[in-house]
């Protein structure tokens, strides 16, 4: 049945932010439980190869470096909390572990943004991150010819990685185009240091391999019957509205289409724990409010890294350090040396400026909300189409909640993680400003859990378990 674990610190997410928090807490002698949905720690950017079943090779990865006071729970999902942060519920293979921790650090990262367009549900369309995950985790991407489309520096990174893995890249299709105003971002971009240099290296590789790069272009539709066979691409205006092609649209053969439009913070656990969310204009989304040491409005709960505003792996790692030090001070009374905190804060400021410049150059423009056709699926779980949603908005739906009730969009198996950013763009129209609508309401469990796991939630509880919003699954 269910196991109960007492610990000093629970860290949810074993990416750069979570692992730095783990290090600070463990180095100070605190007991740490770190949980991650993946089998091995590392998160997305520092993702490790999956285990091969060969015991000799298994223990040399990140997990072995965590130290004896750290318990790593892999392939385990934090499905929620109760009584504020006091009890964390972790599910693995239908069994629930309850963790009582004196402090909780949420470091659950971000989700990749997409744009719905005709044909985007065909097998062979995936996020750029999905392809990177395959390359890093499995060592291969089982496709032959790719088109990498969307907006942001990740397009170049993904295209380069595909080329190195032997996949032919037919084109990189970037919706943004260089503007005069971007010149003022150059100093801040240079401040990105090694990340900026990586970007130049990707451009060089792509150029040397002769991959065409279309800037100010977008995918009009994905072509195929049972899987991807090609894409049609065409030019966009400055606002990302499709322009008349005058014969310039092209059809490219491919069996893989990667879509990537930046990231959005994963806020479901912060919301379910009761932390206050605030609009994040740069990301067109929400993030938990945080103190200077990244504590949320819920005392004893910290949120670090991309789950609290998407600013990349380097910022995430530094935030993990800051929160780790704050947790140590809270639980032991020992503060970090001033000089060290000062250094970390200065690096954070410089990297933040870099990330702001990146966000400004690759800002998603509202014309992209017109890329979907009337019959294009928006909620991939429930099959809700653009015309279903537009009808509901015409009938007076003004919130994520009313759209959901009217159309079922966001009520499927992924619990709205994929479509909520798309619904919010539809609701906020040409401003794409989340402050005009309320964030999505999140209920336990934040991930689908077996009936057994939910029943265990109620064991020993004096209140009824919260009802799921989604009664269908």
């Amino acid at each position: 049945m269910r196991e109960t674990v007492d610990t000093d610190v629970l860290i949810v997410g074993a990416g750069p932010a979570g692992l730095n928090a783990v290090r600070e807490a463990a180095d100070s002698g605190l007991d740490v439980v770190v949980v991650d949905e993946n089998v091995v720690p590392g998160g997305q950017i520092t993702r490790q190869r999956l285990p091969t079943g060969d015991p000799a090779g298994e223990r040399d990865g990140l997990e072995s470096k965590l130290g004896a006071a750290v318990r790593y729970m892999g392939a385990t999902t934090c499905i929620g909390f109760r009584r504020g942060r006091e009890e964390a519920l972790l599910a693995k293979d239908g069994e629930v572990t309850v963790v009582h921790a004196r402090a909780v650090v949420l470091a659950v990262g971000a989700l990749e943004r997409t744009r719905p367009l005709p044909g985007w549900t065909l097998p062979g369309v995936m996020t750029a991150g999905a392809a990177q995950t395959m390359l890093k985790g499995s060592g291969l991407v089982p496709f032959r010819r790719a088109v990498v489309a969307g907006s942001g520096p990740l397009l170049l990174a993904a295209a380069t990685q595909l080329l190195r893995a032997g996949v032919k890249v037919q084109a990189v299709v970037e919706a943004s185009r260089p503007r005069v105003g971007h010149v003022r971002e150059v100093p801040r971009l240079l401040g990105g240091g090694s990340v900026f240099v990586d970007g130049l290296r990707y451009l060089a590789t792509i150029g040397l391999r002769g991959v065409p790069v279309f800037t100010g272009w977008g995918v009009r539709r994905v072509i195929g019957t049972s899987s991807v066979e090609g894409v049609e691409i065409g030019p966009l205006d400055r606002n990302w509205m499709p322009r008349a092609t005058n014969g310039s649209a092209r059809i490219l053969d491919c069996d893989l289409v990667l879509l990537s439009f930046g990231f959005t913070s994963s806020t479901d656990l912060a919301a379910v724990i009761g932390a206050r969310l605030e609009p994040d204009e740069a990301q067109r989304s929400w993030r938990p409010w945080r103190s200077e040491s990244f504590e949320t409005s819920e005392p004893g709960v910290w949120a670090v890294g991309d789950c609290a505003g998407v600013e990349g792996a380097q910022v995430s790692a530094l935030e993990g350090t800051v929160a780790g030090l704050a947790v140590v001070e809270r639980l032991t009374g020992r503060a970090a040396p001033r000089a060290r905190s000062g250094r970390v804060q200065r690096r954070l400021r410089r990297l933040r400026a870099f990330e702001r410049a990146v966000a400004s150059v690759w800002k998603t423009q509202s014309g992209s909300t017109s890329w979907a056709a009337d019959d294009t699926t928006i909620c991939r779980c429930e099959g809700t189409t653009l015309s279903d949603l537009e009808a509901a908005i015409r009938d007076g739906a003004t919130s994520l909640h009313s759209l959901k009730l009217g159309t079922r969009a966001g009520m499927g198996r992924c619990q709205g993680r994929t479509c909520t950013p798309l619904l919010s763009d539809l609701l906020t129209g040409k401003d794409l400003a989340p402050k005009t609508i309320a964030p999505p309401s999140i209920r336990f469990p934040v991930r689908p859990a077996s009936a057994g796991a939910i029943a265990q939630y109620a064991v020993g509880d004096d209140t009824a378990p919260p009802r799921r919003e989604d009664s269908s699954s």
Partner: protein
Amino acid sequence: MSSPLTESVGAKQVEIVIDGAERLVPAGVSVAVALLLARADATAPSRTVFCGMGSCYECVAVVNGVPGVRTCITPVADHMRVDTRGTGNDA
């Protein structure tokens, strides 16, 4: 799928059962990747892996009898049974 795609993953293979058919797939890959490698002969699914990081639930299958398993974050293991026909969505 042919060998160039699998050269980089090493020689070790494991045997898994996909929709009732035995398959040799590279050790150390995700179930989602194994399904893509085997898809030439399997029935064409209407959806396959999309987010690749356990968020979208489009790659779920029944694995060793457990429904709703996210194949993108699950590594293959010898003698694993994977079923993509039906109840992967009924956790």
